[in-house]
């Protein structure tokens, strides 16, 4: 094999080696490997009526809403639903019909849990709750804020 042929082989090997090794070397905080979590947010209004009614879009939390402490109400309506890809330490606004909320991914724990900070304000901008919780992917968090007219305002989230 001539010198030039060896050179071509070496160039090919080098380029492939670089291409193959680079993704493996990229760490969690590498610019190309952004840490994100996909989270869903359900804003729910709850009240008591003559007949039980749960929106079909709430199927994922329906079973939970039929049990205490939610059995205070029997009618649940989805006010808003959003899916967000949360970047680490970047506050993301969650659009709500009533009030506002932000979600921040603090970190991913053990590859299967998310540590999220949720801040909720009411429709007058008054802070209702700020909470940081570590939750397994697939599990749910539900914030409940009872209203004066015996209605409830719920915000539920889960990540995967």
């Amino acid at each position, binding site marked *: 094999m*001539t010198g030039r*042929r060896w050179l*071509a*082989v070496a160039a*090919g*090997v080098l380029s*492939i*080696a670089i*291409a*193959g*090794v680079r*993704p*493996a070397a990229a760490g*969690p905080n590498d610019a*190309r*490997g*952004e840490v994100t979590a*996909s989270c869903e947010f359900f804003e729910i209004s709850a009240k008591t009526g003559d007949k039980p009614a749960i929106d079909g879009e709430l199927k994922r939390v329906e*079973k*939970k809403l039929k*049990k205490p*402490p939610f059995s205070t109400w029997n009618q649940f309506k989805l006010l808003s639903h959003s899916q967000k890809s949360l970047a680490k330490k970047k506050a993301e606004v969650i659009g709500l019909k*009533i*009030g506002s909320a932000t979600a921040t991914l603090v970190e*991913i724990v053990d*590859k*299967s*849990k*998310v*540590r999220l*900070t949720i801040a909720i*304000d009411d*429709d007058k901008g*008054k802070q*209702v*709750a*700020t*909470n*940081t*919780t*570590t*939750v*397994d*992917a*697939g*599990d*749910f*968090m*539900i*914030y*409940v*804020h*009872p*209203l*004066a007219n015996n*209605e409830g*305002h719920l*915000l539920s989230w889960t*990540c*995967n």
Partner: protein
Amino acid sequence: MSAKSDLELMEHADGELDDADVAARIERDPEARAKVDAVKQIGELVRGHLELSADAVHDARFAAMWRRVDDQLVAPATGLWSRISGWIDRYRGHVITGAVSAGAVAALALVLRPSAPDIGVRTRGGGPIQVREVALRATPEIDSLDTPGGSSTVINLDDEDGHTTVIWVTPEDTVEGI
């Protein structure tokens, strides 16, 4: 004069016979001398003709070779693509060798590379966080909770779908919603 004498004269003229009697005869016999001279002239003529023929053969061969070279000569490449294709033509063997080697290394890299990036680290188009079996999941852990202007109650619910943590915020003035 006999045929043998003529033969001796021809041999003498060609330098093949060095005989004193023949030489003496040529000296004293003008006819013999004329024959020898004639033979020498004919020999020179023949040699000259042969040499010319040989030269003509070489010229013909060279002409044929040059024609073949001319036929195979291509106009010099001027465009970028022509240069690239010309380069590839010249180094086709090298290019093929390099490509085959790169393919082999790529196959090795695919086989030997780490199985997957860390789950939960979503690269562009990457996979989601690992969702474990319900039995393996831990109860959600509240790191901090602040409910200004109200009180809170934390309730953990477990079912076959996993854990659900409820944070029930009761405002002191139960007038406003979230």
